[in-house]
């Protein structure tokens, strides 16, 4: 990954991120997604915790990402399940902006959701 430091990975310029659009990227070969809600940018795992589906094909509504397969919803702020059938929370990554670039933490935030 270009521009990666140990803990954070550079993803893309902040001004290229459109509201409620989903952007895919990879960290260490694992899919992640990025999106924007209002002024806030969120990053989470790219694969649903229910069965197997790419969340990049899903939808964003309010602060929730919805899986394209069976409609599970995950709160982008905490990873908590907001709509079934998923049972397990979605890993969430910290986001920081430096020099107009979005950086995402390599490791998920400590036990999140509920």
């Amino acid at each position, binding site marked *: 990954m270009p521009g990666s430091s140990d803990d954070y990975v550079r993803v893309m310029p902040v001004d290229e991120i459109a509201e409620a659009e989903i952007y895919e990227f990879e960290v260490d070969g694992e899919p992640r997604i990025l999106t924007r809600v209002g002024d806030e940018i969120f990053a989470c795992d790219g694969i649903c915790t229910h069965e197997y589906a790419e969340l990049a094909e899903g939808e964003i509504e309010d602060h929730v990402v919805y899986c*394209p*397969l*069976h*409609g599970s919803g995950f709160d982008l702020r905490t990873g908590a399940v907001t*709509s*079934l*059938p998923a*049972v397990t929370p979605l890993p969430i990554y910290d986001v920081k902006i430096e020099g107009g670039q979005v950086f995402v933490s390599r490791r998920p935030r400590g036990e999140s959701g*509920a």
Partner: protein
Amino acid sequence: MARRPVSVLLGAGVAGHFAADALRQAGFDGQVLLIGAEPVRPYDRPSLSKGFLQGQKEADALFFRPEAFYRERDIELLLGRRAVALDVAARRVALDSGESVRYDKLLIATGAGPIRPRLPGFDLSGVHVLRSLADATALREDLAAAERVVIVGAGFIGCEVAASARALGRAVTLVDLLTAPMGHVLGDELAAVYAELHRAHGVDLRMGRRVVELRGQGRVEEAVLDDGTRLVCDVVVVGVGVRPEAGLAADAGLAVDRGILVDEHGATSALDVYAAGDVAYWWHPTLGRRLMVEHFDHAGMQGAAVGRAMAGQPESYAPVPSFWTDQYDTTLQYYGYPIGWDQVVLRGEPSAFAVSAFYLVGGRVVAAAMLNRPKEHRAARRLVAARAAVEPAVLADPDTDLRALAKQLAGE
């Protein structure tokens, strides 16, 4: 010293699991007892007809949570025990093990059981129903050696089993009085698309027909249809619907009509007794009528809502019900109220198995079913939640931006 209050959850299935979790999340610190007739802790029932039957998933992968999850939350599991009597005056449940359990609050989440037709030959070996992990294990073993499978009933279970049996390379005949698979729920228009889908995957569809008898020497060898046709087979799967497991409640004098009657908080007619999931016939407060829903999302959500109510945090449960079904490489997502319709509008490409169906009553959208159209899920759900009045031609028009329409008609 005050006695610790006891919450008993009867039925360790989907609703029971989510209720137990919600009780603890809501801060209930009394005793939580999750009692179930099956010998295993709560698991993902929908996988039984799909990944598990196809051998892509083993039983270990089906459990919602590891045992430690229940231990850490002090949720006691009493498995392999069936409740045989309920006494609401004494607040006691009698189990088939001889034990008797006292409750302060009780949830009945006993689900539903498959209907077994009383027709000749349906008790032969090789004839299966599919509800539990034990059922699915037995069916999977039988399918491994089978060549020809006859499926009685083209509802969700029958159709999913048909798809799984085809994936295993078995010859499959699907028989139902319906004119097309799942037509009673999805309507003729979308059901016709599913008929094509199953045919394209090599299923022999016998619609408008009924199996009247199964024959064989000890083990099933043929199925006889109402027109006299005889279908050679070595496995039969019966999927003709389910009946709520409400007998215990009815015997205890609770109000039961099809399912156990509950209000918007999941409360039954008996004090401190609740019901949730497939067994409940529940009052939807914003719709202003009772609904019977036999799907996963509802069981989990209502179970959780009742868990919170039992912990002293009642909330009005008024969801847009939803379900999914996966068959072959397709997925269908449904949002809506199972209250019938007077018009169905299709949007998309039926021939490519990528189509949405909108169900209208008096010009208002009451349900929507999206077959392989994931980008329309949320907009459709919003239209349903608002019961929006939409011109059929606008819905059908491929140039209509559904999200913009939902925003305009259903608000933010």
